[in-house]
């Protein structure tokens, strides 16, 4: 009996580091989009709460490493590594486990790298831990979450993983070269 072999979006491309910053791929057990139906926000929030991860407000992410609920745009939340149990009939639930490349940018000066790629103010005093944004990385639509003092998780369409890695490599090398 043949079996299909799985391959992650950044396989063979990551990890690498330049200067003080490293870029690595993050693999969540699952990624699931949740879009509450009309009038079901409260009910969905209750399910989140009962499961131990509060439903994130706009521009926020909740949870911890390996298990996050990330605001993902208008009326959408992305569950990363969290189960969607109990949401049937309350929200449109869609498996997105393979749709996205997730990478972690980590290290002193990580925000200097993002300042080359992202047109948002990601300063630690403004974009704090647990803050998230749908924005762009160069020409690519992205979700960016600050998960630590010097750590960001960046989510991009899996088909663009190579471009993502390419853009980060250029920015990271240029920042490292300035030191």
């Amino acid at each position, binding site marked *: *009996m*043949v*079996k*299909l*072999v*799985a*391959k*992650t*979006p950044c396989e063979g491309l990551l990890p690498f580091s330049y200067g003080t910053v490293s870029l690595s791929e993050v693999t969540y057990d699952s990624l699931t*989009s949740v*879009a509450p*139906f*009309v009038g079901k926000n409260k009910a969905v929030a209750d399910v989140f709460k009962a499961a131990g991860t509060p439903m994130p407000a706009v521009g926020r992410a909740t949870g911890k490493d390996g298990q996050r609920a990330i605001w993902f745009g208008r*009326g*959408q939340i992305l569950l990363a590594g969290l189960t969607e149990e109990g949401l049937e009939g309350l*929200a*449109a*639930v*869609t*498996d*997105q*486990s*393979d*749709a*996205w490349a997730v990478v972690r940018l980590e290290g002193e000066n990580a925000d200097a790298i993002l*300042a*080359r790629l*992202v*047109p*948002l*103010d990601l*300063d630690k*005093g*403004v974009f704090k831990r647990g803050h998230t944004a749908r924005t762009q990385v*160069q*020409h*690519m639509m992205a979700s960016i979450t600050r998960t630590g003092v010097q750590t960001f998780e960046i989510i991009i*369409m*899996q*088909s*663009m*993983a*190579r*471009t993502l890695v*390419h*853009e980060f490599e*250029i*920015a990271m*090398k*240029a920042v*490292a*070269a*300035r030191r």
Partner: protein
Amino acid sequence: MRVKDKGLINRAVPLRFTFDGRHYEGFQGDTLASALLANDVRLVGRSFKYHRPRGILTAGSEEPNALMTITDRAEPNVRATVQELYQGLSAKSQNNWPSLARDALSVNDLMAPFLSAGFYYKTFMWPRAFWERVYEPLIRRAAGLGALDKTHNPDLYEKAYAFCDVLIIGAGPAGLMAALTAGRAGARVILADEDSLMGGRLNSETYQIGDHTGQDWAAAAVSELTAMDNVRLMPRTTVTGAYDQGTYGALERVAHHIAKPADDLPLECFWRIVAKRAILCAGSLERPIAFPMNDRPGIMTASAVRSYLNRYGVAPGKSIAIYGNNDNAHQTAHDLAAAGVKVAAVIDSRADAQVQGDFPVYTGAEVINTTGRLGLEEILVRHNGENLMVNADCLAMSGGWNPTVHLTCHMNGRPVWRDGILAFVPADDAIPGLSVAGAARGIFSTRGCLQDGAKTAVQVLDDLGVKAQADVPEAEETPYQISPLWAVPGKGRAWLDFQNDVTVKDVKQAAAENFRSVEHMKRYTTQGMATDQGKNSNVGALAVLADVTGRAIPETGTTTFRPPFSPVSIAAMGAGGQGKGFAPERFTTSHLPSIQRAAPMIEAGLWYRPSYFPMPGEQTWRESCDREVNMVRTKVGICDVSTLGKIDIQGPDAAEFLDFVYTNTFSTLKVGRVRYGLMLREDGYVMDDGTTARLGDHHYVMTTTTAAAGQVMRHLEFVHQCLKPKLNVRFISVTEQWAQFAVAGPRARDVLNALLDDPIDNDSFPFMACGQVKVAGTPGRLFRISFSGEHAYEVAVPARYGESLFRLLCAQAEAMGGGPYGMEALNVLRIEKGFVTHSEIHGRTTAFDIGAERMVSAKKDCIGKTMAARPGLIDDDREQLVGLKPAGAVKQLIAGGHLFAPGAEAVRVNSQGYVTSVGYSPTLDCYLGLGFLKNGRARHGERVKMVDHLKGVETLCEVCDPVFFDPEGGRLRG
């Protein structure tokens, strides 16, 4: 020459460099300009038009003359006054041949009487055709600055974003004081200065601040600011433009000053800075005086002379004269005398000027001529009605100071004339959120600048709700006294705009020829249109214009300063867009195996898709394509169709929503079935087509074409948010989630059944069925749909398994005589079946045009239905989709060719339609085409003539049904 014990240069670090091939030595901290002057090099360039010998005029970014090519990286038009010296720097002068000192085109200078303003417009009118072929190339070769290197630019450029509470532009006394005030109050501050060393004029003057020299105070301020976490210092960064919403463009010179930059270090970085507030502390620029023959090398602004002396420890001459109309100029004489440099004379145009010093002083005097072919030798002074010669190899001139108002004009603000200082100052609130402090608004004393910087910072911070305190040290407060002195009459040309060779005479001539508006004068003479944007000449030129037109200066007005403040390389503005940075690349999961099969890739939107899969022995793409078409028609083919848009649609109102966006009905579609759908724009034209599958009562998956995936998603959002907000439906793209492959051909089911956990047959999976399956143990989806006309399926698995499944499908297909096929074969297969793509639904065709008007349901409303029913959109006379087959000796069809009646002349008015898609059909052994023809559906069997005017091809065609192959569709259902 160097002056002992002066300057902020590091004499412990000598740096060797070359200029026009000759070797020189300078020191760390020098600019190229200061190092050249230290080596007594005065002639540094040739002027734009007359090829006049020119020297260094200024010590800043406003420099019009000392433009050079840095040959290390073939970069032209670098201002020597901005270029920092580094070990091994190699510079070359521009606009001369064969050499700087013996420039052949300096003959232009002799022709000057004939080359004045308006010369080209009057002279090169005839014969008309000569302009483009003769005159313009000649003029362009004679005039000009540096030459572009036409090879690929290997340098890296970067762009970056920055944000702050307060952006302070300029780090002179006002800027440093503002930054200290804001920084100490805890605000997020960016302090940007175009110089490598912050301090502005403080580094060039001998002022005291408190108990320190101005230079020491500036250094202490910079080190205090450096230690603050909330302050970012950006030296070598020119704020080049002010834009909406507190956004500023800024160019950082990152590696221009480094001898051997690291491989990955960008040359420049273009910053987009967003600031809640900004304070412009850009200082002011000294203006030259337009006296006769004022352009000889050795004549420079007085402030530049002080900069070279005090900052770089360089005396720009052995015998230096000073000429001015204001007290500030006198400081030059005092500084030079104190440093032991000979002061040849102080010439002040004001009869009542007070000057004390051990040097000749002429008050109420004028410089009326100069001599020296390649550098100043003597100046002729008129004093008390007598002419006297002064020996000087350098003349420091000061016509007063112009506040650097440029950024305040970037949003159309007009500066305001102030009589007391004879200069324009920024209008209030010219840029929302931008305040101006210090010399940039006409405050010319050090004390005044420090106080104004602090005061402005306190006000700005108060706006932002931050409490701040001003703590300002003591400093000089010499009153600034000035009398008008714009142009000195006399024999010889008096230059206003050194960079574009515009003289007082040119401006007068413009006025005489009725170009009296300042904007007209500017364009007629080209004054202010060079790369310095008239920084040195603007006010002088309009003062002359005001004089000859009998108006006051404020009445005459100014021209507009636009971004950028100083030149910005296009490469810096386009940073990030080089090479692969131009656009993201989207790769399918089967990309690697396709490349391994040597498939050439074709771009479809951002996607890369295989054109064809060449086999050994195949010489042309057509051979491969024909083989792949035959393979699908007779055996089985595999094609990655993951790039098609896939939208997951859920909710109790999902069916109603789909009925509204599609022309046909989806609420009646059974669960487990797929239907082809057509979508119109609001104006009634076709937007997109595709299949939609019903996975559950409240769950559909829509597919779109590859190219229109984004457009359709946007359209659905629009419809939901704006037209049907009450519908309880949610949708999200799942294009990226699924790797989807077409398996097409008579053996398609055999291939699938080799991989499916539970085999299918025609009863369990008939045409247009869909459902969940397990593919080699992995949950997936199967759709029985066909874009080839064959018995075909599309099988989808989560993207991580895409590559693996593609390899398996190909292996299975190959075992049955099949294999992968690419876009070329896919295109031929669909043309044979008459299926449309965006070649046909190109935005100008209706459902009626493509023969699908019956798909617009009469039983319900849908987007575009009403508009599509407009009389003009359903006329028989419209161009309708037809098939085309060659019917004469010529067998070729070309997409884009136009259709004419066989006997008609092939001209525009006779065009009856056009060809949209063509392909050679190995199945039918001829070219097939799809196209649009007037009243085409009623004309099957007729002959038309296809003409491609570009390629010169004319083919007689038979008009036929667009479905060429298996019109009954028996193969689909088999």
